[in-house]
């Protein structure tokens, strides 16, 4: 195995192109774990930790750019992630366990594209975009277009993820993340990420995204539409839940059967909405 530590994105791209089986190394939490278990043995590891650009956070009028190498802990303590963007902060502060949050990164989470993980769903809820650098230059795309399947991204050969853009979102909106897991230090059985805005008792904006309910984060426009304009009463939640269940293809594993996850969807949706609603009122 070869190993390199580029200092710029361009150097990194050049290194990635030298090997068919080159892999980026971000926090390493998942990649090294899989290497230890003999599940992967990349011919070349390109560590991204020396590329300053990837660890930079920049703010603009429209929102916040987070570098791909931001560790979860840094995201969790980023005070500028408020309002709708809070959904990402909330997810980053709760996921996995402390030592993983001190190591694993935003970019690694996205590029791993593990359906059990939480940041991908939170980023979809936040309407995030990602910037990808490749041999042909840089492009930006909605995060949904990056996540194409379980453990599958649309990154081309020799491409890498540089940063993530979080739009400020609607004024008055709140972001919230609810995870449900067997024990605290476990992947969630189901996670709910949402952005919500209320106009008095009426929901004026909702974007609900579920983790572990399909190969990619589950987002159903029609479910959001049921909630918007409603007073988030039990039957509205049930109807939105029904639409989400209908569109879901939940995981079926030791953390819960697919059927249990289908049962949890409307139930956790209700809880997440009422928690978010309380946040919206403070």
């Amino acid at each position, binding site marked *: 195995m*070869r*190993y390199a530590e580029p200092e710029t994105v361009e150097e990194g791209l050049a290194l990635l192109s030298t090997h068919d089986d080159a892999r980026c190394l971000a926090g390493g*939490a998942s990649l090294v*774990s899989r290497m230890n*278990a003999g599940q992967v043995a990349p011919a070349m590891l390109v560590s991204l930790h020396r590329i300053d650009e990837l660890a930079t956070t920049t703010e603009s009028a429209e929102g916040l750019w987070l570098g791909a190498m931001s560790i979860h802990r840094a995201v969790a303590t980023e005070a500028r992630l408020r309002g709708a963007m809070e959904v990402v902060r909330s997810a980053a502060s709760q996921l996995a366990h*402390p*030592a*993983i949050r001190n*190591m694993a990164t935003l970019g690694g989470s996205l590029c791993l594209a593990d359906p059990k993980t939480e940041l991908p769903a939170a980023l979809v809820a936040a309407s995030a975009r990602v910037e990808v650098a490749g041999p042909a230059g840089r492009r930006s795309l909605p995060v949904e277009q990056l996540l194409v399947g379980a453990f599958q991204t649309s990154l081309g050969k020799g491409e890498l993820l540089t940063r993530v853009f979080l739009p400020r979102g609607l004024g008055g909106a709140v972001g919230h993340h609810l995870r449900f897991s067997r024990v605290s230090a476990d992947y969630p059985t189901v996670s709910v990420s949402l952005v919500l805005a209320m106009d008095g008792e009426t929901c004026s904006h909702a974007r609900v995204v579920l983790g572990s309910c399909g190969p990619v984060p589950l987002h159903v426009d029609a479910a959001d539409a049921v909630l918007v304009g409603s007073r988030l009463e039990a039957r509205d939640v049930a109807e939105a839940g029904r639409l989400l269940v209908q569109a879901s293809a939940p995981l079926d594993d030791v953390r819960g059967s697919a059927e249990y996850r289908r049962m949890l969807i409307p139930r956790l949706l209700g809880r997440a909405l009422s928690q978010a609603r309380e946040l919206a009122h403070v």
Partner: protein
Amino acid sequence: MSDKVSLSLTINGAQHALTVAPERTLLDVLREELRMTGTRRGCDAGDCGACTVLVDGLPMLSCLSLPARLGGRDIRTIEGVESGGELHPVQRALVQHGAVQCGFCMSGIVLAAKALLARNPSPTLDEVRHALGSNVCRCSGYARVVEAIASVGGRP
């Protein structure tokens, strides 16, 4: 065959120059190359916390860390917790409270607790429980461990 990488690690304040295969983890290097066996291997997958070390003061899992990336960073292992032959208060508290059973989890727990106390000298029981979120102890049931750590900061 793997390429080797040469690196220099700062462990407990001392410099170590090493040449290792890049896929060797920090845990491998500590236990096998440097024979610092106080850092334990319980799972090699990020699930048990027995291999916890502090990197720049933060708990990290040495089984998931490639040392090649840790050049220039301050790595603390259990071997570097005592100072001048004196136990760290958290070590003393764990001994005094009878919190130690088989001890296999203890290196990781001591380091996680030390990191907590460094930023929060007087944690509540709940804050201690959260700080131990990465560390499995199969023997103690945690109660005495949590109480011992909280006692260091003066909380009961």
